């Protein structure tokens, strides 16, 4: 252990920074997507619920981004990292950057992503990086609620009318190609896992799938077969078309008025 208060050895710092960047970007990009639901939910109550989920994720992203700036030695602030990195420097998975679909698509995406975060944060509570361990302990309660919210809707839509069943099925099919990327061991994750900071994504796959499968079964649906095409490359900064538009919207004020405060 080094004398660093957060107990990440000097050698592990660049690795930890890269790993945390991925987790932070997942949360940040999905927070931005979920914000789009405000005024577009089936009821104002659902606007609130999804906004709350988004704000929880934004809170996670803020702490993680700040930590990235400390670990990578650049001293960049959370705002520097959120607003002044381009698409290729973002490390989020493709799942969270996909355009907002219908409500069923969002619930399918939220179910997978929150189930993934539940297992992820549960494991990260014992991370060697104390800040990450702290974030994980706090965030686990949040994402547990997110998963419950998604599950409530997937069950109601799947086990609802013929129309809602069909659309919930279509939503699970639409999300499926983006799932495998969550459990892919990229170099940063592998190195972070080795250093005791992170957890191997592949080690989470089974438990996450079991969480989702239980909900899907209760919803009288079945999980689609793995798709032939699947997303890749988010952790390397290779993204799909929608991310550029999302970042343009999220970043343009900060870039038009650098240093502005409000």
């Amino acid at each position, binding site marked *: 252990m080094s004398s660093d208060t957060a107990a990440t050895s000097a050698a592990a710092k660049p690795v930890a920074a890269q790993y945390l960047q991925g987790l932070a970007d997942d949360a940040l990009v999905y927070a931005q997507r979920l914000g789009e639901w405000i005024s577009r939910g089936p009821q104002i*109550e659902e606007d609130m*619920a999804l906004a709350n989920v988004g704000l929880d994720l934004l809170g996670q992203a803020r702490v993680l981004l700040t930590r990235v700036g400390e670990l990578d030695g650049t001293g960049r602030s959370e705002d520097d990292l959120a607003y002044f990195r381009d698409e290729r420097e973002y490390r989020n998975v493709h799942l969270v950057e996909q355009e907002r*679909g219908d*409500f069923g698509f969002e619930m399918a995406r939220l179910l997978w992503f929150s189930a993934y975060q539940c297992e992820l944060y549960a494991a990260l509570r014992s991370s060697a990086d104390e800040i990450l361990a702290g974030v994980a302990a706090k965030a686990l309660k949040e994402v547990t609620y997110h998963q419950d919210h998604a599950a409530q809707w997937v069950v109601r839509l799947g086990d609802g009318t013929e*129309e809602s069943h069909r659309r919930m099925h*279509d939503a699970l099919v639409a999300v499926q190609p983006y799932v495998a990327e969550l459990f892919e061991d990229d170099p940063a994750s592998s190195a972070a896992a080795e250093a005791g900071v992170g957890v191997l994504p592949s080690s989470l796959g089974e438990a996450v799938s079991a969480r989702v499968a239980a909900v899907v079964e209760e919803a009288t649906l079945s999980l689609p077969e793995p798709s032939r095409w699947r997303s890749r490359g988010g952790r390397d900064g290779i993204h799909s078309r929608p991310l550029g538009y999302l970042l343009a919207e999220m970043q343009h004020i900060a870039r038009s008025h650098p240093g502005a405060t409000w």
Partner: protein
Amino acid sequence: MSGQGQEPQGSPQQATAAGEGPAAPGPRTWPLWEVFVRGKRGLSHVHVGSLHAPDAVMALRNARDVYTRRQEGVSIWVAKASDIAASSPDERDAFFDPAADKVYRHPTFYDVPEDVEYL
């Protein structure tokens, strides 16, 4: 959804072929629920407002998201608004005015012990 018959655009799924399904009951047919929140242990649940939800389980969750975002409560009740029998404003005189001159019903003829917090 935001407007009748208007679906969100930009779905990553292919456009659904069957555009005109049966006229399903719209989301605005969700029943109204009254929400009661208990602020802390030892206090009663207090009515804080109402919301729409398809069923009781979702109503509880919506209430959590709408009414306890700022740590307002430790417990929530919801009750279907239509299940609550309420007195009518028209009956106000008959219901409540006769109590106005029954001063002997008030506990004003003895001292309240100082340590009693909630009375």
